[in-house]
């Protein structure tokens, strides 16, 4: 019964793409390959285990030394509604219809931020600004380390 209902919801989430925050609709395609199910994060239930989970604490990430980013891949990831979807909130170079919620990142390379800081901010902005609305992309496994590195390279080329 419950499984049926979830399938039901999934089917409904598809046409909803046209509606509110299409970006964040959960379809199987929206999940990182082999990514964890939502039950790993807090939910509203008074009885299900996810209803008793804690928010994952803010985390200051270290730039993984071995990784190198690809700016083209980074741009694609940042614009992809199923991945970073940073455009929902930010204006970014090469992206149409950016959001007006957050700072304009289209000349971000001129801000003088270090690779380390940019990486850590995307990984978990809460480490810098508690209570930010920006999702903790690394801590909550929305993006992998490599994907975040790619986006860092893209932003480093945005001037």
């Amino acid at each position, binding site marked *: 019964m419950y499984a049926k209902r979830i399938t039901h919801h999934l089917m409904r989430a598809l046409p909803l793409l046209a509606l509110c925050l299409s970006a964040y609709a959960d379809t199987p395609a929206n999940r990182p390959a082999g990514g964890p199910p939502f039950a790993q994060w807090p939910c*509203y239930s*008074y009885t299900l285990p996810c209803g008793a989970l804690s928010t994952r604490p803010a985390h200051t990430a270290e730039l993984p030394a071995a990784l190198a980013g690809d700016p083209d891949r980074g741009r694609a990831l940042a614009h992809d509604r199923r991945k970073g979807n940073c455009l929902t909130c930010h204006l970014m170079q090469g992206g149409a219809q950016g959001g007006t919620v957050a700072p304009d990142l289209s000349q971000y390379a001129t801000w003088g931020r270090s690779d380390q800081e940019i990486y850590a901010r995307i990984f978990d902005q809460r480490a810098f600004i508690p209570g930010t609305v920006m999702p903790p992309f690394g801590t909550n496994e929305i993006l992998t380390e490599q994907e975040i590195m790619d986006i860092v390279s893209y932003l480093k080329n945005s001037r």
Partner: protein
Amino acid sequence: MYMHNRIGAQTKRARVGGALMALALAAGASTVAAQQGGAREYVPFDDIDPTLGHLADMEFSGTVRYWKDEETLRQHLSWVGDPENEWKLNYKHRDLEYDELHGGHFYLEEGEAAFRELSERHPGFAGCIGWGEADLVGAATRYPRYDPETNAIWTLEGRIEHCAKAIAGQELPQGSPGNTRLSLYVKSLSHGMPIDMDIGQPALRIAYERGKGLFYMKAGQFNFACATCHSPKTPVMGRRLRGQMSTTPFAFAAHFPTYRSARGTVETLQERIGLCSRQMRVTPLRPGDPAYVDLEVFLTALSNGYPIVSPGVR
């Protein structure tokens, strides 16, 4: 320019039960943690006086002054399509489409036929929905309501499920088309009448506080709360999220069940909450889940005094 929302750090575990707690909640403690265990982040609570209904939005987003009645709304119709201002109409301009023949009207006809059929075979059905009164004009304005006999809070859809089972032996689970059709019909009998949920009733008031806790609680993979997008304390409300704009949560409840023109279906308030949950990557719950009932009570209190639009369209 906006105020940063700070982590509420409300790791305190409030527990229901205990008349003392009930009183404390009813007294309007504005820092009620949700009922769950676990340390959670919160968007800071807005100070809302739930006895003011939709007019509490005056102190909140202030946009109620533009959509509070049809005349005012019509004066601001030039804002439709204007990215700076349209959100201030709170989507209420779409209520003016009521007179057009949209899909909700067809769905309503089906609902009326289904209701006739059911109450001819089972004369007690209407009285069960109407709490003893078979005339259901105005009945929908009083939902969700508290029943001391069962010590339960009934939403309209929950009551329809219950009465269909108890009176007709029929399964009409919440969220099923059969249930939603009937709900839309019963709601339409109150079209134009102000919502009048009894927020002075202690059990409803406690449910309101629980629902408020859920509304401000961050959840899911994106770590969003409903309030992340629907509170003026965050930078999101009134700004563009790619093409979309989110608005104040006041008077949301008035037009549900709503015909969604983009999807061609009718959805209930709780189905909407489930859909928004998925977008937030939060495990969705079944319509009728106690947590969703609490959210519905919270949102309905913020709609009190606003006239029902049924069949609504969005």
